[in-house]
């Protein structure tokens, strides 16, 4: 057994100002350390140092991004505020969806942990975002996962991707949350830097919103859920080693966290029952920075003080030091503020669910966060200084010199295939390419049916969930980002990501109302990366303002890079929409022969950054497709109106792979063929251009007149391409005068790519 030599207390810190502290090893800069000393008027105790170092880290303090993220709040208009019940700054934003119902949703990254241990990294990423949603007072109802990994044929991708998928599925399936969407993208820049972004949606009534606030002196602080172990605190062992006799140093603590989805499921049901019984006045999940974060944020937001008796925290590993307990990222824990007379009923509910709960302290009106350990004071700080007054940096930013060359190297000048045979082969090659092929190897590992409210899930454009069985009210969610476009132009690229997610939601028949974002970038210390970041945030904020939908919350993940090479800048955008009656949603697949097929929107010669350019020419350069958010809104108006009138049999947005890929997916969904004539453009452009604000729709011929009216009313160009023809494997995509492609052949190409690369990997 290790014996602790010295407990570094607040008193001791006052008496020994000159003790050398390992602030640099904890990631603090010297001016940050001086700032802490200034705040406290003495050196911090080792526990205080632990808390500040983790709370002032990039991950928790947003020190590099804060000045930019302000734009989201500053660009809010009254129209955007209308539905916003809770905005940026809480665990997740909350929006009104009508009938007294509200929806909360947020996306978060768990990138690096998923590289180190793909299964557990992804699993605990899901667990973390679900607790954020739960902490708002909501019942979690759906998950989406947005994944980016290295090339499909890279050896490490076969370690990372199957592990991540099994982890997302293993955790989400066990929670009983339907997985209704996401992305799987392959690109060399993500080798060694996979992105695992998980989005959770929750539903609550307006009066059920809970906030992370500790108020009311005398209220109790309850920690409940899993016991605390040495998870994810590899970094703090430097502190432990300071206070342990060298020979008795504990082994280096693991830096990975292991998830227990069963515990989380109990935590969800238990917490919902606690909300229901009105037994909670404030609540916070324990995620990054664990108890340091939960205690300081609760106390600071409540404008109160808090006294915690740290030795009451139930431990899985009794050798943990107080510093380690404060920083442990053990999963499946929550902290609640409870009125004294409610503590007994609170404990009874926890007991019923088999969830351990412990009263570890109280809310005070001292304005200080104080923490005691075995009768000695080890922390005495102003909670706001830990939670909110971290350093803020205006990092230098600079448009990289190479950017001009990249922008001028446009794909429109690449050689184009000539005749029908070559176009046919290109359609097949794109359909079979890793970024466009069938995703079911991944999505079949996710339960999309549980809870019985899933109206649309993969491979539809948006996940659609019914949230009220009586009225049929539902929400639609989609996450998107074409990072190549962001690389070519971060401002426009971020807007294109927004536009795509917005369009996916609208095409399913839902009205887009809110945004969440996960900004995955390289190092903020690289001025080029910082320029990308600033431009992307500016683009997103401006775009949201034009579309009149607010950003309600999100997450920033920096340092996704290997050496000096950053990932493609990847601001993943999640858009949430509302649909009054989910029976009126529009699916992507052609439903049967004899329907008219239309292309809505305008197609331009826009091939830079496209799948065609990458797959056929391995080329990235030029300007991304033009952003036209007004056209995007007009298209959405048509799609939402058409869905409400039940005009359409199917609707599918055009994005990666252009019209060709939209046809492939609409045909293969139910095995229905199509006969079309391309409009009078260069056929390559007609098939593969990735111009925005477009959708492929099919409808009974009796409805064509009404569709034409709607389109002209909103100024959306529409082109009749042809009709659906035939059903089954022998049905074809028949492009007049150019080629025909039997669905059987197409399906074989489209569906074998992932299994043949990943099975028995």
């Amino acid at each position, binding site marked *: 057994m290790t014996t602790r030599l010295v407990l570094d207390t607040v008193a001791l810190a006052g008496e020994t100002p000159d003790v050398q502290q390992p602030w640099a090893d904890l990631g603090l800069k010297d001016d940050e350390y001086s700032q802490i000393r200034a705040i406290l008027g003495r050196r911090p105790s080792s526990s205080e140092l632990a808390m500040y170092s983790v709370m002032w880290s990039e991950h928790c303090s947003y020190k590099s991004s804060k000045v930019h993220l302000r734009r989201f709040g500053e660009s809010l208009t009254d129209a955007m505020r209308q539905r916003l019940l809770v905005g940026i700054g809480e665990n997740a934003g909350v929006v009104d969806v009508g009938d007294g119902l509200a929806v909360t949703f947020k996306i978060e990254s768990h990138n690096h942990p998923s590289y180190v241990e793909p299964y557990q990294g992804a699993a605990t990423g899901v667990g973390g975002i679900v607790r954020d949603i739960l902490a708002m007072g909501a019942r979690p109802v759906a998950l989406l996962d947005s994944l980016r990994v290295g090339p499909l044929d890279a050896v490490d991708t076969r370690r990372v991707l199957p592990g991540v998928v*099994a982890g997302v*599925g*293993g955790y989400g*399936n*066990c*929670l*009983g949350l339907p997985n209704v969407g996401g992305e799987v993208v392959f690109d060399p820049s993500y080798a060694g830097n996979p992105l695992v972004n998980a989005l959770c949606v929750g539903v609550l009534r307006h009066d059920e919103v809970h906030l992370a606030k500790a108020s009311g002196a005398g209220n109790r602080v309850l920690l409940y859920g899993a016991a605390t172990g040495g998870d994810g605190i590899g970094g703090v062992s430097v502190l432990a080693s300071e206070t342990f006799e060298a020979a008795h140093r504990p082994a280096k603590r693991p830096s990975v966290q292991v998830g*227990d*989805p*069963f*515990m989380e*499921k*109990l935590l969800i049901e238990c917490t919902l029952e606690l909300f229901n019984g009105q037994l909670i006045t404030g609540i916070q999940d324990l995620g990054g920075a664990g108890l340091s974060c939960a205690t300081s944020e609760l106390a600071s937001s409540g404008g109160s003080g808090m006294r915690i008796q740290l030795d009451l925290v139930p431990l899985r590993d009794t050798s943990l030091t107080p510093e380690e307990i404060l920083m442990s990222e053990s999963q499946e824990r929550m902290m609640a503020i409870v009125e004294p007379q409610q503590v007994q009923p609170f404990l009874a509910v926890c007991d019923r*669910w*088999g969830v351990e709960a412990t009263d570890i302290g109280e809310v005070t009106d001292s304005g200080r966060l104080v923490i005691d350990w075995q009768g000695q004071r080890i922390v005495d700080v102003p909670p706001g200084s830990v939670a909110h007054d971290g350093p803020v940096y205006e990092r230098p930013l600079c448009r990289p010199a190479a950017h001009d060359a990249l922008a001028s190297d446009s794909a429109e000048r690449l050689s184009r295939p000539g005749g029908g045979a070559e176009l046919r082969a290109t359609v097949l090659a794109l359909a079979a390419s890793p970024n466009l092929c069938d995703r*079911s190897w991944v*999505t*079949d*590992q*996710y*339960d*999309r*049916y*549980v*809870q*019985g*409210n*899933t*109206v649309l899930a993969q491979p539809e454009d948006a996940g659609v969930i*019914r949230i009220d069985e009586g009225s049929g009210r539902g929400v639609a969610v989609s996450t998107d980002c074409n990072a190549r476009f962001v690389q070519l132009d971060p401002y426009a690229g971020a807007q294109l990501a927004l536009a795509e997610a917005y369009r996916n939601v609208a095409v399913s028949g839902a009205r887009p109302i809110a945004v969440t974002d996960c900004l995955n970038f390289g190092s903020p210390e690289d001025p080029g990366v910082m320029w990308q970041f600033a431009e992307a945030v500016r683009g997103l904020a401006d775009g949201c303002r034009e579309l009149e939908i607010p950003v309600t919350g999100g997450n920033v993940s920096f340092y996704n890079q290997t050496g000096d090479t950053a990932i493609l800048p990847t601001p993943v955008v999640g858009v949430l929409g509302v649909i009054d009656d*989910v*029976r009126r949603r529009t699916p992507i697949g052609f439903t049967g022969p004899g329907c008219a097929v239309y292309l809505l929107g305008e197609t331009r010669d826009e091939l830079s950054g496209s799948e065609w350019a990458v797959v056929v020419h391995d080329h990235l350069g030029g300007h991304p497709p033009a952003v036209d958010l007004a056209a995007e809104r007009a298209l959405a108006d048509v799609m939402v109106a058409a869905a409400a009138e039940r005009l359409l049999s199917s609707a599918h947005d055009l994005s990666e792979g252009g019209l060709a890929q939209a046809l492939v997916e609409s045909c293969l969904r139910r095995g229905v063929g199509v006969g079309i004539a391309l409009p009078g453009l260069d056929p390559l452009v007609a098939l593969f251009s990735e111009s925005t604000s477009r959708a492929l729709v099919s409808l009974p011929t009796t409805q064509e007149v009404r569709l034409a009216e709607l389109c002209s009313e909103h100024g959306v160009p529409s082109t009749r391409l042809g009709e659906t023809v035939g059903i089954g494997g022998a049905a074809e995509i028949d492009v007049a005068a150019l080629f025909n492609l039997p669905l059987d052949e197409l399906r074989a190409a489209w569906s074998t790519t992932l299994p043949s690369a990943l099975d028995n990997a």
Partner: protein
Amino acid sequence: MRVGVVTFPGSLDDVDARRAVRLAGADAVPLWHGTDELAGVDAVVLPGGFSYGDYLRCGAIARFSPVMGAVTSAARRGMPVLGICNGFQILCESNLLPGALVRNDSRRFVCRDQGLRIENTATAWTSAYTLREEVTLVLKNGEGGYVANAATLQRLEDEGRVVARYLGDNPNGSMREIAGICNERGNVVGLMPHPEHAVNDLCGPGTDGSRFFTSVLSAVVAA
């Protein structure tokens, strides 16, 4: 007519099973794992999910819960019991049905719309189907491979106790493509696929699953 739906810690499809029972026209009665009271129900559904996390073996810990004591004796007296997915695993672990369910041969969780052939319409839960009818339900499991020794398999076949078989590619390595079986009396049925996810056109692959729940209504009325 009252149909109990048990909730174990970690049950997930209990909500769906209750909805399916209601849509069939019966009262859905929630039953809690920790009591040995069956609240006067006429039949019991053990729903899907990951009871106790399914960490040890699926269904291995749920078997020892108080409610399973009551379900086991009621089943032995003839009460209709349907175990779906995790419920099927619990029935096997409880020795109410023979054999066991092991890890899918793909070693992956699989969720997909699955064709089945109904091969026994004499059970309490399948009387509303026609023999050899082909239906589509949702299959979603990580450990759905049915195994039993040769003698048990032979006996199941001889006695016509294979209730449903997978059509097309075997999704999980189940012996003889077995998707569901029943006990000798036909009151206890275990089924890997999920009929409760196929009870309306909107949120699942059609309505082929409804008749599991209407079947039991007539079974109870007839009894």
